[in-house]
């Protein structure tokens, strides 16, 4: 079981308190009527499914109930960073390098 840190509550809790919301930073097309078919396919269905450092959404379902983002290595399942929703995506290469030290 993973240990997940909620940046809103400031605590680390077992994974069963959380639900994973899939890949993060997938923005809905800003002007839906102008978006092409390809834009919708990418938004709805295409996922990077990265083997390595990956950004995903988590929700503290049985806690504060809020969404936040996490950076995780999908090969080792180690978390590299947690940050609040709305904050920019950290530099993934930098994080991976730090974790490698």
């Amino acid at each position, binding site marked *: *079981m*993973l240990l997940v840190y909620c940046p809103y509550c400031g605590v680390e809790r077992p*994974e*069963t308190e959380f*639900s*994973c919301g*899939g890949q993060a930073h997938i923005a809905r097309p800003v002007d839906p009527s102008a978006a092409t*078919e*390809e834009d919708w*396919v*990418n938004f*709805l*269905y*295409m*996922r*990077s*499914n990265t*083997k390595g450092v*990956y950004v*995903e959404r988590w929700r503290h379902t049985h806690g504060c109930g809020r969404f936040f983002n996490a950076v*995780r290595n*999908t*090969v*080792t*399942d180690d978390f590299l960073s947690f940050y609040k929703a709305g904050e920019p995506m950290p530099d993934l290469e930098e994080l991976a390098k730090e974790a490698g030290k």
Partner: protein
Amino acid sequence: MKRYSFLELAKNAFSAHQNWGRQWRSPEPKSEYDVVIVGAGGHGLATAYYLAKEHGVRNVAVVEKGWLGGGNTGRNTTIVRSNYLWEESAALYNHAIGLWQGLSQELNYNVMYSARGVMMLAHTVHDVQVAQRHIHANRLAGVQNEWLSPEQAKDYCPPLNISKDIRYPVMGAALQRVGGTARHDAVAWGYARGADDMGVDIIQNCAVSGIRRGADGAVEGVETSKGFIKAKKIGVVAAGHTSTVMDMAGVRMPLESYPLQALVSEPVKPAFPCVVMSNTIHAYISQSDKGELVIGAGTDQFISYSQTGGIHISNHTIDAICELFPHFRRMRMLRNWGGIVDVTPDRSPILSKTPVQGLYVNCGWGTGGFKATPGSGHVFAHTIAKDEPHRINAPFTIDRFRTGRLIDEAAAAAVAH
């Protein structure tokens, strides 16, 4: 190929079974093939087998990062059934059932297909309605499936607890008698032996690191740890790693790879006659011919390539099994493991041409690909050989995520995911 027979068995008994030949060669890759299949699991090997057998395409290589049948083929819970809701799926999985029935004879290899029946339990009023809808849809599509009352279910599977005072009492069950189990390793080995005999090169310990494309965009071959292999056509059958392989050709996939766990108990005498599955409480169970109880759980909630899952997921499954089958409570579990399953948004597989000329993909089988192995290989071989899909896999394109013609089988797998 030396055919296996009773006579061969008797003959080899005189030399204490020391002189059985190897089942397949271990060749070095040639510089060029007509078709290169990436991934030597059941589906990839079946594809190569039917390419050689049905389409006369024998200049084929199957390249494999690890050893053949060592991925999800060697990790699944070996269940075979075809009671899917939609006609497209029913046709695909029923095609596989047809092939399963003669597979041991076809391959001259005992795949131990045992039609012992797959029983799917209903625990709520909603379950009952959904199961009956499935049964009606199946019967209209010519797929065998029938409804059992709790008492009939207990008759069919005596260990089942149908008392009314458990947390999720059994309100009935859908039974597919033609469903059952098969020996997963034997399926991969049988196809490997058959394909090898017709000239297919199975190249193990050979990881693909790139897909080379020409100026016109068509594929030219694969970069591997054993050097560049030229290929006119490439079929990607890499299960959980499909996204990473397709990425090498610049094709994005609507896939996410999750860990899926299974576990087996210590072996005991025959105590469990069929396969029982339950969507609602996330568990499925059967007994292998070796005597182990084979138990499957749900996927973890996050994507991962670690081939391990959280122990709380297996725990949850064991809770459910112990409630449904109280006499297994004192069984000890022997091993537990995980595989990486590639899941599509509509939970149906992709057997398709791709936007890249000469590149084909067979993936997205999610938590239930084993049952389809022969059918999947059969229609995918057709797709590669003819450069157009077989009637049965025509609906299973990548393009369906653009056109919206999804085949929504989200409730079809053993566990709601």
